[in-house]
């Protein structure tokens, strides 16, 4: 069922039922009112007619008395002699009667009857023949003769006419003063004065008596014969006996009774006007019902009209208020179903429907946001927010097709951070992530800046940065004029990535290698361009990092294409491209060379010397650190034994050990084997471990270190102060020596903070019974200060820069240093 129908089924009865009930009440009320009104009208009419009749009767009775008291009448009555009466008096009497009749048109006849019923005098208003003069035997006179009272009134029909009339008679009783004593004699009956009153006035009233359309009155005699009726054809008809019976019964009651009159239901009211005269009021019920019926019809029409109006108004209102908005909503929903998450919903209403619409719109909006987010997630890198590999490929594809159409050129830059792995491993993934993020930020701002610079270039030609994964980024440069444009961007990238990154206290130096492929020269397909840029990137890495290479340029170096720094390092180990440099450590008090720190150098045949901070991380990453570390230990041991055999040194050699070595190598046995092979005493071998490395190692490794120390090998904590070792840890660790980082020593004399740290470290070392070495000592003032503070050993450019073994041999031989030191100390 449709919404319209349902609402109509609910609302229409709500409106119609009260209306019907109301209508019913009104109908009933109306009917009752109509009945009451008509009844009261009828009652009033009947009462009025009854009163009127009574009034006429009263007047007639009074008049008869008046007439009878006239002196002429009295004289006439007293005159017993007929001749006297008839000749002398009758004309006068008749004249008197005539004048009465003229004065009272209702009276049709005045008679004087003798006590025996003889009609002695008679005057009529109309010339009507007299039937008889001897009335002694008539029922009327019989009754009159028996009457003892003053005035005798009867309804009867005079034999002269068929008309019903009221006869008012007054017996005339007089004392004849001529022969009777006025006091003691009884008045003698002399005759009767009879006035006949026509009831025409009633007929007129009957004719004009109407209640409503058909309510009327009639007068019947005792036998039920209709005497007066508005319809002359009804006159003389007989009222049904049952009806007459009812009328007679209700005669005294003013209430209306319901009867069947002339085959129709009627309300009947009756009044007894006089003996033998019954006034009946008839009120057809149909007429009363008709009035109610009209109301009923009106109610029916109103109901019908209301229903129609309701339906129309509801349909229109619902269409405006509900159906149309619902259809809008439905359309919107189906639009959403079809994928349009931001459908237009034109709604302004504040009702629930409007709220629904708004929340629906909100929901759709959220859905759209989620979709955008999901899409973003699908196409973007979650860490940097940059487009991901997928998007990069897609974008590139689009760019290619664009470039194809326009015969344009474009460049793909493949970027890889140079030491990301190292950062990740040494500083943790958080820092690595930060590095990636910061890199992305820098690159993005750079590309934005590029856009600003090349404002003449259309918007859709701006560069696109994407992260392919790990530390690999790709930069798509549409609309380049040539390799120069790409090179310009690449060199700028190199510059900004080279700038150190600062994360908290960490300062990270990074760099990037960029490979560049060009469309259409290097390829016309997405995969080709990216692969070739990747290859060019490796080329750049091999070129010593922090540079960029074009794919096409690297074609000549195809053989090197697959050679990474790692493989070169591996090769360097076997090719003896690795070399140890040595830097002396002197006794602060005496200036005597007490030790030599072995420092690894890589002499790459192409790049030249590669600093350890560039290749050590790679070595650690690749595991090459293990053979390299072992080689360093053996080489340092061998060299020291050579110098010892030559009598050049009674010092120890200090070797840096990586945390990976400690973890993965049986360092204890290697150290033992080195000592055995070189013939050195254990004290002559010192292992330097950085504070950060030491903190990362597992507890069992600590045991290994302890074992070596027990053997006599010195364990030195390198770069002390850069980590966060606690004093308790220091106490527990198998450490014999602290090396103060060169960064503190460098500014010690100018920065009180550094000076305080140096003093504190030295104090701690002393407290814990540890030896101390200061690194990076470059001036005599520093040396003097450190000596004064109680530092055991000094190391730095003040004494010597790290020297290759051959040069160190010469240095040791010259002893020059010794002397120099001596003189210095003496100052």
């Amino acid at each position: 069922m449709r919404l319209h129908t349902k609402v109509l089924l609910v609302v229409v009865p709500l409106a119609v039922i009260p209306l019907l009930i109301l209508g019913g009440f009104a109908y009933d009320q109306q009917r009752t009112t109509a009945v009451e009104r008509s009844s009261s009208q009828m009652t009033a009419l009947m009462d009025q007619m009854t009163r009127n009749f009574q009034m006429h009767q009263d007047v007639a009775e009074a008049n008869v008395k008046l007439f009878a008291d006239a002196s002429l009448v009295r004289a006439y009555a007293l005159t017993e002699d007929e001749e006297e009466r008839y000749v002398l008096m009758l004309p006068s009497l008749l004249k008197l009667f005539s004048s009465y009749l003229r004065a009272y048109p209702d009276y049709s006849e005045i008679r004087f009857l003798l006590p025996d019923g003889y009609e002695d005098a008679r005057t009529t208003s109309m010339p009507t023949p007299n039937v008889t003069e001897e009335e002694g035997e008539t029922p009327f006179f019989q009754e009159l003769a028996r009457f003892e009272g003053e005035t005798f009134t009867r309804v009867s029909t005079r034999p002269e006419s068929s008309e019903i009339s009221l006869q008012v008679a007054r017996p005339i009783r007089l004392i004849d003063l001529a022969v009777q004593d006025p006091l003691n004699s009884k008045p003698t009956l002399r005759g009767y004065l009879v006035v006949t009153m026509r009831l025409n006035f009633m007929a007129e009233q009957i004719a004009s008596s109407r209640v409503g359309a058909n309510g009327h009155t009639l007068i019947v005699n005792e036998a039920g014969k209709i005497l007066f009726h508005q319809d002359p054809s009804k006159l003389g008809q007989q009222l049904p006996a049952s009806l007459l019976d009812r009328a007679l019964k209700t005669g005294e009651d003013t209430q209306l009774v319901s009867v069947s009159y002339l085959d129709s239901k009627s309300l009947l009211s009756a009044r007894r006007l006089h003996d033998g005269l019954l006034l009946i009021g008839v009120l057809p019920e149909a007429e009363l019902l008709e009035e109610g019926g009209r109301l009923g019809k009106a109610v029916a029409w109103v109901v019908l009209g209301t229903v129609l109006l309701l339906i129309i108004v509801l349909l229109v209102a619902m269409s405006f208020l509900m159906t149309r908005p619902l259809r809008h909503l439905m359309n919107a929903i189906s639009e959403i179903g079809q994928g349009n998450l931001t459908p237009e919903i034109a709604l302004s209403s504040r009702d629930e429907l409007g709220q629904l619409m708004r929340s629906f719109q909100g929901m759709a909006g959220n859905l759209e946001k989620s979709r955008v987010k999901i899409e973003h997630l699908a196409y973007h890198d979650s860490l940097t927010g940059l487009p991901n590999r997928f998007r990069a490929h897609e974008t590139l594809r689009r760019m290619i097709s664009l470039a194809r159409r326009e015969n344009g050129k474009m460049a793909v830059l493949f970027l890889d951070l140079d030491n990301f792995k190292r950062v990740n491993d040494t500083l943790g993934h958080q820092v690595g992530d930060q590095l990636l993020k910061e890199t992305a930020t820098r690159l993005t701002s750079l590309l934005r800046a590029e856009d600003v610079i090349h404002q003449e270039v259309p918007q859709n030609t701006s560069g696109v940065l994407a992260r392919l994964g790990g530390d690999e980024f790709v930069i798509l440069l549409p609309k380049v004029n040539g390799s120069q444009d790409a090179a310009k961007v690449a060199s700028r990238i190199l510059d900004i990535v080279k700038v150190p990154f600062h994360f908290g206290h960490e300062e990270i130096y990074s760099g990037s290698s960029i490979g560049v492929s060009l469309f259409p020269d290097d390829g016309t397909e997405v995969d080709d361009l990216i692969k070739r840029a990747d290859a060019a990137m490796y080329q750049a890495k091999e070129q010593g990092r922090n540079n960029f290479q074009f794919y096409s340029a690297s074609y000549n170096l195809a053989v090197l294409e697959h050679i990474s720094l790692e493989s070169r390092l591996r090769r360097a180990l076997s090719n003896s491209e690795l070399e140890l440099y040595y830097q002396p450590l002197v006794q602060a008090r005496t200036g005597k060379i007490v030790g030599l720190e072995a420092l690894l150098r890589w002499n790459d045949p192409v790049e030249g010397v590669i600093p350890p901070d560039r290749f050590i991380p790679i070595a650690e990453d690749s595991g090459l650190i293990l053979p390299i570390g072992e080689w360093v230990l053996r080489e340092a041991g061998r060299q020291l034994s050579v110098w010892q055999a030559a009598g050049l040194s009674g010092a120890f050699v200090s070797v840096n050990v990586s945390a990976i070595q400690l973890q993965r190598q049986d360092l204890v046995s290697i150290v033992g084997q080195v000592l055995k092979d070189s013939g050195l005493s254990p004290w002559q071998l010192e292992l330097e471990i950085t504070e950060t490395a030491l903190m990362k190692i597992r507890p069992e490794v600590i045991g290994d270190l302890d074992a070596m120390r027990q053997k006599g090998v010195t364990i030195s904590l390198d770069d002390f102060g850069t980590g966060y070792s606690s004093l308790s840890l220091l106490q527990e660790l198998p450490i014999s020596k602290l090396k103060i980082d060169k960064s503190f020593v460098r500014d010690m004399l100018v920065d009180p903070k550094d000076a305080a740290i140096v003093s504190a470290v030295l104090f701690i070392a002393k407290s814990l019974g540890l030896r101390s070495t200061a690194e990076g000592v470059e001036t005599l003032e520093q040396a003097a200060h450190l000596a004064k503070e109680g530092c055991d050993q000094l190391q730095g450019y003040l004494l010597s820069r790290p020297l290759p073994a051959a040069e160190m041999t010469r240095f040791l031989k010259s002893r020059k240093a010794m002397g120099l030191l001596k003189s210095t100390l003496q100052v």
Partner: protein
Amino acid sequence: MSVSKTLLVAFFLLATSVVAKAAEPKELVFLSWPDYMDPEILEEFEQRTGITIKQSYFDSDTARGELLLETEGKGFDVALINGASIRILAKRGWLEPLDELSIPNLKHVDPRFRTAFEKAEDFGVPYFWGTLGIVYRQDLVPFPVTSWMDLLQPVKQLHGKVSMIGDSADMIGVALKALGYSLNSTAPQELREAESLLQAQAPAVKTYRYISLNENSALLTGQLAMSMMYNGDTRMLQEYNENIAFVFPKEGGNIWIDYLSVLSASPKKAAAKRFINFLNEPEIAARLAQYVYYATPNKAAEALLPEDFRNDPVIYPSEETLKNFETYQRLPPRAQKNRAAIFSRIVY
């Protein structure tokens, strides 16, 4: 008080009583028809007796009856009564018996007239006798009138211009006469016919009052063209207009006698009798007859009348003329009643 003074007072009282007695019958009320008395004769009576006659009038016997009935016969001293009514009024006790002792001049009166009606001899003195006929304007009625029917069934142009005498006996009488019946008829059918005739005539009747006889008479002014009239009255009208004509209808009519009576209720009966007696002095009666143009029953007076008066066919109709004329007879009471009813139905 002295004897002489006492005598003086007695004389004075006597003198005043004599004067008072002489002044007592100063005025008599005479109930009569209008124009039925010569004023000069009344003056003469007054000169001779000091008694003033004040006349009171009626215009029909019926009207006189009503008048007397209203007062029960009181208030009048002398009245003119038609012969048929004397018996009834006397029976009623309203009339004073009269005889030759009280009215010495009765000796001049023809005894036939005195006894023409019952009780007339005892209670009345004949005044004049006359008949009933039709008076009309010859110039207004385009044909010679001969019959009562000319009056009772008037031609269209006379409608509203005829009058009748409002007396039950006369009116019903002429109707009966017109129909060929006796005017004393008691036959109901004849009376019904008479009534019908009168009823039919009624719309054309201008009045049922007796017309006046002076110069203002409706007959002279032309308001009326035809009427019932007592014969002598015509002559009075003819004094003013020669077009006045009188006819004795061929069907006949009534012969009447008027009587002078003294009312028993009168306190001046002596004066009244004296007046009647005066009127019957032959010379007076003769003058009076000539004044009213009626035939006098006074034989002595008749002898004094001029020849042409005595030969006037109107005043003294011939035997031939009076062939169908009747006097009113005594009728049964109920017949009288019937006539009264008929009369009332027509007039009232």
